[in-house]
């Protein structure tokens, strides 16, 4: 439990850095912090494989891409951080309501929840693969198309630029 609280607080701290820091490099590093804590939470919640994949893909690849763009554009810390004041207040209210609604929803009891012990091998590579290549085969194949489109799109856009 203590572990969870520490991790949760670090995750929220990282998220706040992302949103509030003027320097985009710090924002990206705050994002890494949060992503890493989310990975730890995955490990706490019986998803060790996902925890590692989260680190490999998010921290190892996606945030590196963010950092690359920030550095390649030589982005300076922003002088005007925020949107106009009314928009900021509206955003705060909206986010507060959203968070409250989600938190409230999470206390609603679940049908079929907590039925004692988890199935053996829950969260293991075998069980994940069985689900991925069994019941969810079509989405899996479609992700390859999605990734293909992403690659082609990126190349086309980059050429338009030069």
């Amino acid at each position, binding site marked *: 439990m203590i572990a969870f609280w520490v991790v949760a607080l670090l995750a929220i701290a990282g998220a706040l850095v992302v949103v509030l820091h003027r320097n985009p*490099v710090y924002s990206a590093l705050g994002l890494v912090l949060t992503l890493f804590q989310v990975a730890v939470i995955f490990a706490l919640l019986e998803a*060790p494989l996902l925890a590692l994949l989260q680190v490999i893909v998010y921290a190892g690849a996606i945030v*590196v891409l963010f950092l690359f763009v920030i550095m*390649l554009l030589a982005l300076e810390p922003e002088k005007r951080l925020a949107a106009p004041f009314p928009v900021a207040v509206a955003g705060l209210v909206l986010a507060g309501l959203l968070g409250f609604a989600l938190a409230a929803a999470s206390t609603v009891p679940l049908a079929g929840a907590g039925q004692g012990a988890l199935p053996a091998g829950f969260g293991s590579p075998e069980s994940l693969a069985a689900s991925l290549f069994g019941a969810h085969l079509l989405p899996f194949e479609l992700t390859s198309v999605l990734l293909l489109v992403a690659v082609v799109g990126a190349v086309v856009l980059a050429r338009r630029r030069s």
Partner: protein
Amino acid sequence: MEVFFSLAKVVVAFVIILQLTLILLWVERKGSALIQDRVGANRANLFGGLLPFNLGIVNTWMADPLKLFHKEDIVPADADRFLHWLAPFVGIVPLFLTFAVIPFGDVLKVGGFTIDLVAAPIPASVLFVLAMASLAVYGVVIGGWASNSRWAFLGGVRGTAQMISYELALGLAIVSVVLTYGSLDLQAIARAQGALMWGVVPAWGVFYQPVALVLLFIAGMAESKRAPFDLPEAESELVAGFFTEYSGSKQSVFMMADFVEVAIVAALVTTLFFGGWQVPWLGREGFHFPGGLDIALPSLVVTLLQIGSFLLKLFIFCWVQILVRWSLPRMRYDHLMAFGWKRLLPIGLVNLVVTAVFVLAFEGWTVR
């Protein structure tokens, strides 16, 4: 008691890597001197040079770190002080941490306990190694940026692009091995290599996956950013690349990170392709030679032999990397990127498919 053993393993794994890096630093100096027909580091002495002989390894083991720690810590005027500090820190912690999941022996039996000789026996430790390797990029990219120097920045960007390019080949090589042994656990892979092919040859990964071995070795050396892949820190072009603006102990941490990476590559090669801690024909009760000759050994002796075998193999592959570094000239950057993307990546994919066909077509091809 259990907790004590766990902590002891953690400390042992850490001490292995820490000492190995310091020893490697000395081996590299003496080795490069040997290759270049020089004497190499020979000046460390005690009591103001009163000893009649120099202290050899003490040069880099004690004297060098102490000297570097007493240097001034210079941070350039326009640098981001926090990130300048953070870069070496995040550069080395994941690398150190990698060794927590590398098995350095089979089991140790003491007083009724059977201890798995890996500091943190987490599931999917192969992926843990890759995750830590992918985090090591941050030291380079932050270090290059935080210094606010153009050359350091160029070195950092080059280094990052190089590391991520070769990470793919590294990943594909490792997937092939995972496919061969059907496990994501380094200790399980090491144990599987204790079996024998045709009752004679140890079932080491090198016999199943020679192509993956080459891929992993090349990609791993590119990850460690040493010659012939040392473009991020090419002295004649970029001063010292991403850590140009570092001095004193921060700079020594970056240098150390290089050697830790060398050790990690050696540990991966050892564990995935050369049986890890396995000694050929040595089981938990002693030797079982193919001719039918059995030699029973006490469990402790077996364990010590295995740990010794692991360290020996580790050291050999570190030495090979040092030899390569001092033998080959630096690559050109376009060649480097083309090599990673147009050669290693397709070869890795083909190797993967061939492995998959073998695994399915020949049931008894691999030991499980």
